[in-house]
């Protein structure tokens, strides 16, 4: 039985309630599917090359953005790893990421944005870990994504996105 937990933080970076309601600018939401059992490597796994990492990151964040903007997380769940699917439903995700939907935080620009910084990709057990920051005209977006191989394809197993609206 894989053990798992849902970890949710919605942080408003020290703003008081009034300013939260006024700006609703910063939200940190983490949704981790921790599947210790499945993380034990049964064979050597290669880290994908830079281009493939880039594709994984942008596709995951765009699917996430579509889910937030539509309030429908069914496609995100369908594309996620079976480990993720076994622990989270579209409804649970909608509740967890309500802040993004409520604030209409459109992160579409990430598809073409330059990286502000990123960490070297690494494996944590069987999980591929991709961490970095994008800056667009409207947002600074920190991401921490984990992927597991399902049938030789990297599928998201956890997502942690911190989007901060930049001041103009």
């Amino acid at each position, binding site marked *: 039985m894989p053990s798992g937990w849902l970890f949710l933080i919605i942080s408003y970076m020290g703003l008081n309630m009034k300013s939260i309601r006024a700006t609703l600018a910063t939200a940190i939401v983490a949704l981790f599917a921790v599947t210790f059992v499945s993380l034990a490597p049964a064979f050597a796994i290669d880290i994908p090359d830079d281009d493939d990492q880039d594709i994984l990151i942008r596709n995951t964040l*765009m699917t996430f953005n579509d889910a937030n*903007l*539509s309030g*429908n997380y*069914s496609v995100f769940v369908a594309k996620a790893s079976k480990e993720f699917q076994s622990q989270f439903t579209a409804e649970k995700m909608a509740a967890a990421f309500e802040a993004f939907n409520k604030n209409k935080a459109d992160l*579409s*620009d990430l*598809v*073409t944005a330059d990286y502000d910084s990123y960490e070297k990709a690494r494996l944590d057990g069987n999980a591929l870990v991709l961490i970095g920051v994008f800056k667009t005209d409207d947002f600074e977006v920190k991401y921490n994504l984990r992927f597991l191989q399902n049938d030789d394809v990297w599928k998201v197993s956890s997502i942690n996105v911190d989007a901060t609206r930049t001041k103009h």
Partner: protein
Amino acid sequence: MKSIRANLAICIVAFFVLAIAWVLPAFAADIPDDDAQDVLIRTTLLTFNDANMTNNYAVMLARSSKQFQSQFTADKMAASFEVFRKNKLFFEEVATADYDSSEKATIDKEGALVLVGVFKTDDLQVKYNLRFVQNDGAWRMIGLNVDATKKKQ
């Protein structure tokens, strides 16, 4: 018939809303700049690709224009785009792919923004013809024509 079945790697699917009355602009919308066009093209194609990969068109429908939503259901879209799923014509690489070519963006006589071009990835050539209308100040998809061709290996 035999050769058609054999060549299902090539498919063209067009999905246009003929809603001229709705599309006529109440005011002249400016053509978005190159960066905004790029974002519109890639996000639309990735949303379409997600729908094809999962056989779930609800999110794509929700992200499209109200004119499109009024005429199509997720089920109807699933039937129309079956060929993409059947032949696994998936193109996540469009997120980062270079354009092979693109036409200058235009606003057509119906007031829709028209974006046309071609991506080439390692596996596919993807020709797109996308139309957008403004809903509440945002460009939303009203027409989609995608021709995905598997490259010969």
